[in-house]
């Protein structure tokens, strides 16, 4: 009796699973770290999906995820074959999937920056050094897995203060993404924050920042960041030379509107070694073991 019940339920479960797996055997799926507002991401990457589908002549699908780790895990589990990663998430992903490769980065990503921003009530002003007066303020990073929103600002904070962020600030938060960091500091929920410079510049150009409420107080030195990373086994699955075609398609992407949505000038070639500095910093801070 019990066995029969179990069997019946196993069948029912299998029935739910089967039609799903069969339907999408050869769709090329990609994802991206959720570093900005979801609506923007969906718009941007739907554009990329359409572009890639045309260039590569396969069905291409973008899946949104809720965290940086979910993007890495989906890539590792081969549920996505391509991803737009940050510096750190890319390093994590390539460590976990042997044979995976950084294909292309934005022109800006060779020397990316983090901006430290502060609410006007703090009276902090822009300076060439990380201002010592940020001590004992409330502070927010972006996502825990972010390069420009967590890893590099933490690295520069430790370098400058010789202490962990929790000891420097009265309160340390993780906003989740760069847009939210901007909004939280603008609203004064946190006094100081660190975010991706490109998000700041784009929001500023679009007139979405109340510059009376929030300003940039320090710009970090440059470091390598975002890149497109592809799994090593795509050639087996999608045909010989597929990886090179993906690389070419990304490098040749020149639709100004699409590029502006990233925002990047253009995509340029990248390889795994470009991200060695990020790996070292992540190991130093203890995020990578």
């Amino acid at each position, binding site marked *: 009796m019990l066995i029969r019940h179990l069997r019946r339920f196993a069948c029912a479960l299998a029935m739910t699973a089967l039609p799903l797996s069969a339907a*999408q*055997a050869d769709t090329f799926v990609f994802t991206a770290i959720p570093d900005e507002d979801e609506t923007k991401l969906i718009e941007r990457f739907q554009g990329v999906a359409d572009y890639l589908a045309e260039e590569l002549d396969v069905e291409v699908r973008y899946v949104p995820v809720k965290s940086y780790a979910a993007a890495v*895990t989906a890539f590792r*589990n*081969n549920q996505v074959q391509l991803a737009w990663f940050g510096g750190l998430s890319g390093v994590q992903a390539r460590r976990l999937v042997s044979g995976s490769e950084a294909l292309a980065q934005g022109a800006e990503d060779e020397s990316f920056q983090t901006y430290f921003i502060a609410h006007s009530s703090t009276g902090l002003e822009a300076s060439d050094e990380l201002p010592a007066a940020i001590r004992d303020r409330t502070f927010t990073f972006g996502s825990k897995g972010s390069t420009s929103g967590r890893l590099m600002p933490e690295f520069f904070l430790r370098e400058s203060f010789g202490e962990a962020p929790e000891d420097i600030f009265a309160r340390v938060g993780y906003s989740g993404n760069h847009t939210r960091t901007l909004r939280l500091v603008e*609203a004064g929920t946190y006094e100081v924050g660190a975010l991706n410079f490109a998000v700041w510049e784009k929001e500023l150009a679009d007139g979405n920042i109340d510059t009376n409420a929030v300003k940039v107080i320090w710009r970090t030195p440059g470091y390598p960041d975002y890149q497109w990373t592809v799994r090593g086994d795509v050639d087996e699955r999608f045909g010989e030379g597929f990886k090179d075609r993906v690389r070419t398609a990304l490098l040749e992407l020149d639709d100004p509107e699409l590029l502006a949505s990233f925002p990047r000038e253009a995509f340029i070639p990248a390889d795994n070694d470009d991200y060695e500095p990020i790996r070292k910093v992540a190991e130093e801070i203890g995020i990578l073991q």
Partner: protein
Amino acid sequence: MTLAPTLRTSLIFLAIALAGLMVADISITAVNPWRDLGRFFLGMVTPDFFSYQGLATALLRTVAFAFVGVSLGATFGFLLALAFRWRAVRMGCAFVRAIHELFWALIFLQFFGFHPLTGVLAIAIPYTGIFAKVYSEMLDETDPEPGRTLPPAIGAWLTFLYTRVPQCWQQLCSYTAYRLECGLRSSAILGFVGLPTLGFYLEASFSQGLYSEAGAMLILFYVLIATIPLWLRRPLLPAYIVAAPFFLGDGFPIVWGNVTRFFTSDIVPAPLRHGEGMDGLLVWLADVAVSDALPGLWHTLVLTQVALVLSGIIALVCFPLISKHFTGPVRRTGGHVMLVILRSTPEYVLAYILLQLWGPSMLPAIVALALHNGGIIAHLVGRQSSTLQLRPDAPRGFGRYSYELVPRLYRSFLALLFYRWEIIMRETAILGILGIYTLGFYVDSAIQNIQFDRALLLIVFTALLNLVIDKLSRTIRARLALQTLPTC
């Protein structure tokens, strides 16, 4: 002077909560919290039902995941209830239900990924544990006598089916239906970690400050829950159960190699994986304990105790809203609507909203837990109070409240509150994912750093803490001779 045991216990818990309040991190850090709160309520009254084409699909998925998860949970729960006299079964069930649905989802996401099975199992597994326990209690309460009147040749199975089950059939059904409501809430919040249910869109709208969109989703969710009696009809049930699996959405195929890798490598503690032996393992364990488990434990306990007592206070203040001894039918309806909203909003969603509005501290979490749990208890206590008969010359107003009703209801109130103690703790831990430094924060950090060994160890630690609280709650309830029906 000696105090009544219930009062003494209450005062001890009150004192612990006050001490907790002293050390808790409580503040509103937003510069202008009221403006955002105003915008939020404005969004609630100007809902935008047409912004997402996907909204109807999200609702459908929410219902489908709840149905499949709860049906599986009820089936396996019933089977396990039959074997509940074995210690191993009891302990296994207690353990799986001590782990929150969101933690289960986070675990399955690592190897099933975005396959519907992730969401289904995240609900089905803890619910199996709960169903097994509650069903077995219900079956135990039935009278064994009718079974003895049947000839032994009929066999134990049929005797059981025809004598025990019918006696508690009604209870089994109504509890299962009640659990389905809980399942809808669980299903909705699974969206917060990326499954295609309501939470997915709710999170997106809230984080972007699109309050009218978020308002529409919340309203639809309340309507869905409030209309359960209308659409959940027994004759339709088989149709729902058969149809639900087909509405779980298109996930991605499971790669079985990921499952093997997860169990044979990912969750093996790093020092063992790297061949550092026992010494390495001890160093690793000490590191997890000092930097994650202990701080997480401390914050979880402080928050739990404060939220528990505040839930009690809210329940005591709010139950008159729906009690026939205080208000007429019109105002009672208003009270009912308010309590339905409080208890159908998952704590996780409430905490998420308040965190966005007030900024990060323990305060949003405490208020969210207290409102939700206080709402549930107020609803049950209020309903019970309406069954009491008072003398015609009983005092009115505050005198009636404090001298007639509260003393009569206090024991069941306390029973409900203690019953919810471990539930509040489980939720407190999970709220860490939102950025409050409870155990869930450290679990989430470990997952973000792709350290599943660490994450799983912390989840097991959280489950054990939950079992301790459950045991403690049981002891206190037994000592005070308190009895209650299960709630979720």
